[in-house]
């Protein structure tokens, strides 16, 4: 049985409170860092741990920290990305609602390492309980002297506040998040420059996902070597996997990266609900290409999923059984992307709308054979032509669905109904 790291406090009573956190070793990593380590040493430790971003892209955290200019004259910021909205993903909400101090401790350590004195939490407007938990936890951290001026007598100061978003998936993309924090429409910026050099109000900014930051105190407490011993050489540490769809036990499961998909589905999620047959699995959230039952032995790590033509993404596993109509699935996913496209780049704005119209036609028996080709054409031409990864995100599931289940699309054209019983 894998020893829980990030979710170890989840089942404790009042797990969200600072008292519970302190009683279970909370804020010890912060004290250790402020007393014993220089910012450079912290960056070295995080780099050595191999920690990679948990928000989807999997960028090495230590490298991101090292990109922030060292000059103390330059003001810098840290942003905590709590804009979780990728369909299938519900880990950050759990982390914030059940153990927010773990994340706050990570924020303070990261801010110390990069020399930031101002940090912001950007949270989805829909997460009302999350907003309340963040505010309460930040207030309590101030009261105990973990935030504010001269933290624990170290001379290091940090202010942290909560900024509530207002309903836009795109704000989970780091430059869109920064735009939104500045009070603008959440439309991604052109990169480069990356936020590490030109971010919030034009200043170097470190943006991290909630889960990424939650790992940081554990790396300090138990060492980079311990952390790197978990997972695979290229994907280290624990990961919170979110399992939804047609399994017996849906929910979050914290496991080492590299765990086989089969193990997650059958040992932890209890296998298929109603003992139906498995048809397809989305391994990392709505924007990741699908896997089929013959690929279940794949280790759930960044490099292995990439080699299989898909992505670990946010670790959100959506399981679909034999009764699932794949045209309907594609339509539903596209409805999401068409709704959430910020409208800035034409390929994404027009592409998602056009694809949705084609998928609606196919699903409702109005589709023609050439619509399938048209769909494929739009999806393949969208990739790589947008400012942010949303264009690829919308195209990927469609292309994989067409590759794996083209017969179902053709069935819809020919018989004007679903190939499955449901």
């Amino acid at each position, binding site marked *: 049985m894998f020893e829980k790291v990030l979710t170890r406090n989840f089942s404790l009573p009042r797990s969200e409170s600072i008292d519970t956190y302190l009683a279970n070793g909370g804020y010890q990593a912060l004290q250790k860092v402020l007393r014993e380590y220089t910012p450079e040493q912290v960056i070295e430790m995080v780099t050595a741990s191999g920690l990679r971003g948990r928000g989807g892209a999997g960028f090495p955290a230590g490298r991101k920290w090292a990109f922030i200019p060292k000059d103390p004259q330059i003001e810098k910021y840290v942003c905590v990305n709590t804009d979780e*909205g990728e369909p*299938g993903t519900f880990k950050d909400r759990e982390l914030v609602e059940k153990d927010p101090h773990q994340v706050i401790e990570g924020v303070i350590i990261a801010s110390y390492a990069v020399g930031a004195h101002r940090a912001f939490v950007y949270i989805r407007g829909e997460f009302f309980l999350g907003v309340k938990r963040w505010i309460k936890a930040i207030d309590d951290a101030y009261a105990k002297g973990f935030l504010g001026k001269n933290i624990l007598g170290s001379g290091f100061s940090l202010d942290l506040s909560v900024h509530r978003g207002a309903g836009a998936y795109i704000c989970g993309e780091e430059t869109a998040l920064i735009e939104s924090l*500045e009070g603008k429409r959440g439309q991604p910026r052109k990169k480069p420059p990356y936020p590490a050099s030109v971010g919030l109000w034009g200043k170097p900014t470190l943006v991290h996902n909630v889960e990424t930051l939650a790992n940081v105190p554990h790396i300090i407490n138990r060492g980079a070597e311990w952390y790197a011993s978990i997972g695979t050489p290229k994907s280290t540490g624990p990961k919170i996997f979110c399992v939804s769809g047609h399994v017996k036990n849906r929910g979050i499961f914290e496991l080492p990266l590299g765990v086989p998909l089969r193990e997650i589905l059958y040992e932890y999620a209890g296998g298929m609900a109603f003992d139906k047959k498995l048809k397809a699995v989305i391994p990392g959230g709505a924007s990741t290409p699908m896997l089929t039952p013959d690929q279940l032995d794949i280790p759930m790590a960044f490099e292995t999923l990439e080699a299989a033509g898909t992505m670990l993404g946010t670790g959100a596993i959506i399981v679909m059984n034999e009764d699932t109509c794949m045209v309907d699935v594609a339509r539903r996913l596209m409805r999401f992307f068409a709704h959430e496209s910020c409208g800035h780049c034409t390929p994404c704005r027009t592409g998602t709308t056009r694809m949705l119209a084609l998928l609606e036609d196919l699903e409702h028996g109005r589709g023609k054979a050439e619509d399938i080709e048209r769909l494929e054409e739009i999806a393949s031409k969208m990739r790589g032509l947008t400012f942010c990864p949303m264009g690829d995100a919308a195209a990927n599931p469609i292309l994989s669905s067409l590759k794996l289940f083209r017969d179902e699309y053709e069935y819809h054209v020919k018989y004007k109904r679903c190939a499955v019983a449901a």
Partner: protein
Amino acid sequence: MQPLEAKIADPAKRSMLLTALYIAQEQYGYLTKEAIERVATRLGLPVADVYSMASFYSLYRLQPTGRYVLQVCEGLSCHLVGGADRLVDYLRKKLGIEVGETTPDGLFTLQTVQCLASCGTSPAMRVNDALYENMTAEKVDELLDTLRGYHV
């Protein structure tokens, strides 16, 4: 002509815009023309700019709604376990309104939303700021009765 940015004395001031729109929405019920103009004046921004923000973000309402806004998640994980469309259909019949409409008594507005990050406890829906998970027809009935009970 002075560039737009220079008119805003403090860039951090503009950061208050999202919060200011929430406050105005709370006070006016939805973002009326007057509400948007007030926010624009207070923050020294063009009205069109503030309006473009209000129309970009989905949690801002540019139309009046009922006392309770029922937002049903239409995400894939909700759909797979019998939610989404089925839950919407149930509410449409039960309330006698279409998506986007409000009941004649002004109590309920029905809307669909994208993923609510409740995929492990789906089907999910929001009522104003509260989240309801693992929804069934019975639980919807119970919820509507409770909410109606506050207004007899």
